């Protein structure tokens, strides 16, 4: 599309006419001229002399910086530009030193960390340094145990608060979790980790092959498919109880469970009737209902996370696997991809996009690479997000709709990577063993 499109908006003022004494007006607009906020985050200062302070301070500073950097809405000012004296409390802030070159920051996050006994106390502020008269955007105090885990949580919370404010209500993802399949213990088991790759630990110890973990919207249960004595079945793990809970077995090959947005239903694919088809059931396993009946495999269902009224899935009815959508009762089937080999759809939290893995040119001799794509479901326009080679598959959205986690073989074995939803800022999270099929928690 070569047509040039431009639009402009403008912002003005607030006036309060005498009759609207308490009425504030913003005259504003959107579009061009919006830049990322330049945010300076000097290291927090120690407010006590406890010998554990430096260690915890480093954990805190690293975590806070990474969280804000990963958010993708800030232009982080490099620490080498900072003035020599960094503030630890509001009276220390020298506005001119931060708002002018070289830092040229518009926002400044600073604070201090102290340890008294077994408790760590963090005070944090967010200042609009270009607004000298009323600079404070945020002021927070946190108290928790003086351990590195607790301090990391405090940093996540403070980062989320900053992102929530400056991102216009974007929910922070710093406390979200990622569930994935890892073979590092010798068997393919379900593992969990923090969103930044920290704290990786195994959940299941079945000694079998477990695939496609899907966390429930409330974060209490994890559905996945596993090879049991009776074949591939859907299994359920309770994160509240930290153990497996019973779930009905259906026979045939049952794969890739998917939670509806309200957590009351599960969709999955089952070959109990011979051909692999999409089924929907209650989250208890009752009220099984088949919703597709076409020749050819139908697998990998996902619900529309916004409306809960549609299901996207992969169907091989026309040959190679393609992405389709339908209403949750099986009507109004629409095909989204028109060529190649498209699998692993995942619906964005706002319901607007599907992310999926696509080999656009598939076949002998075709220069096809498997990459992650986003498609706007209404206009069917798409964007390619990965270009760096290897097989990229199993994308999953973060609940703020701004991050995507996926598996990639670009660095050799299959590992888990994350990126912003426009394809930038790609980072690797796992290193040990083979790690696949990540699923991002709903909150």
């Amino acid at each position: 599309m070569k047509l040039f499109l431009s639009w402009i908006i403008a912002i003005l003022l607030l006036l309060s006419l005498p009759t609207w004494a308490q009425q504030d007006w913003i005259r504003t607009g959107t579009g061009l001229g919006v830049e990322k906020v330049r945010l300076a985050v000097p290291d927090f200062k120690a407010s006590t002399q406890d010998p554990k302070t430096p260690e915890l301070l480093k954990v805190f500073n690293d975590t806070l910086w990474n969280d804000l950097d990963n958010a993708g809405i800030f232009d982080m000012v490099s620490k080498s530009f900072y003035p020599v004296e960094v503030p630890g409390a509001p009276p220390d802030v020298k506005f001119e030193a931060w708002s002018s070159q070289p830092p040229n920051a518009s926002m400044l996050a600073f604070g201090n960390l102290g340890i008294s006994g077994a408790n760590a106390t963090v005070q944090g502020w967010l200042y609009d340094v270009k607004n000298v008269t009323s600079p404070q955007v945020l002021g927070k105090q946190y108290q928790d145990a003086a351990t590195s885990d607790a301090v990391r949580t405090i940093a996540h919370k403070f980062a989320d608060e900053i992102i929530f404010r400056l991102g216009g209500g974007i929910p922070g993802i710093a406390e979200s979790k990622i569930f994935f399949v890892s073979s590092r213990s010798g068997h393919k088991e379900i593992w969990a980790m923090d969103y930044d790759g920290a704290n990786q630990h195994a959940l299941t110890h079945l000694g079998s092959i477990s695939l496609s973990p899907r966390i429930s919207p409330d974060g209490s249960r994890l559905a996945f498919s596993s090879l049991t004595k009776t074949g591939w079945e859907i299994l359920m793990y309770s994160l509240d109880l930290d153990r497996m809970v019973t779930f009905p077995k259906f026979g045939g090959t049952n794969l890739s469970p998917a939670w509806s947005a309200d957590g009351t239903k599960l969709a999955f694919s089952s070959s109990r009737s011979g051909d692999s088809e999409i089924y929907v059931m209650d989250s208890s396993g009752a009220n099984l209902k088949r919703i597709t009946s076409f020749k050819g495999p139908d697998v990998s269902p996902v619900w529309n996370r916004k409306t809960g009224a549609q299901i996207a899935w992969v169907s091989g009815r026309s040959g190679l696997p393609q992405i389709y959508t339908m209403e949750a009762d099986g009507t109004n089937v629409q095909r989204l991809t028109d060529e190649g080999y498209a699998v692993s759809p995942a619906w964005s939290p706002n319901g607007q996009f599907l992310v999926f893995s696509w080999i656009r040119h598939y076949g002998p001799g075709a220069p096809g690479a498997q990459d992650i794509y986003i498609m706007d479901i209404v206009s069917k326009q798409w964007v390619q997000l990965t270009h760096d080679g290897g097989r990229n598959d199993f994308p999953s959205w973060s609940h703020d709709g701004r991050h995507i986690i996926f598996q990639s073989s670009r660095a050799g074995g299959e590992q888990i990577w994350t990126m912003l939803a426009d394809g930038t800022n790609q980072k690797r999270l796992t290193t040990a063993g083979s790690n696949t099929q990540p699923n991002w928690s709903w909150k």
Partner: protein
Amino acid sequence: MAAAEIFFEHERWGRNLAWSAGFHLAVAASILVYTVIAPGGRGEGWGSGGGGDAIGVTLVSTVPLPANPVQTQNVLANESKGLSQSLPKPEVKEPEAIPIPDTNAKKKAKAETTPTHQKPQPEPVEEANNVVPFGQGGPVSGPYGVFSAGGAKGGFGVTGGGGDFGTRYAWYVRVVQQKVSENWLKYEVDPRITEAQRVYITFDVLRDGRPASVQVEQSSGVPSLDQSAVRAIQRIDTFGPLPSDYSGNKVSVEFWFDYKR
């Protein structure tokens, strides 16, 4: 005898070897022939649907991420005095040269002053057209300045009336601007429209950040453009709660959109 038997055995083994080699060659040849004759069976079955054009490309700006920063292209096209002052350059007087009483120097100076046949070269005048004279610069470039793109130009400022929301919470104004820009979907506007009148939209931001009372204050005359602007606001769940130390219970926002392509 023993030797003869050995020869005999050797001969039989050789014949078998020949048979074996022949058979293997035949198998290899048949595989080769099959691959040439048979069209890629499985690939064909899966790939037969392959026709059709690509659906089309789109811009990343439809992804809910901050738009690419567009730098201010001309900060001078504005009559307002700059917030950043470039002071006039102080005149630095060069120390006066003290002539060295030297006969050679005198001669040299004389030689220089003698007229030559060459026409005097006019000294190139340095046009300092990129200098911002003191007090005449534009506003600071950045989120709150004038911006221009693709020939169209717009701007906004925040001025205080009785209320001072915009000056106290400039960061919140920026959030509002960014959120709406992310949620305006260009393709909702009738593709036949290339230019339209400015459309004004008003809405309130409630205490908890929800937009409410979205209205077209002044239509552009293009229904699809008006609709797309209204939908941009309606699509937003929240702008984030109003600043906690702000006393009012809502803020009213007016937008204007200049659509052009």
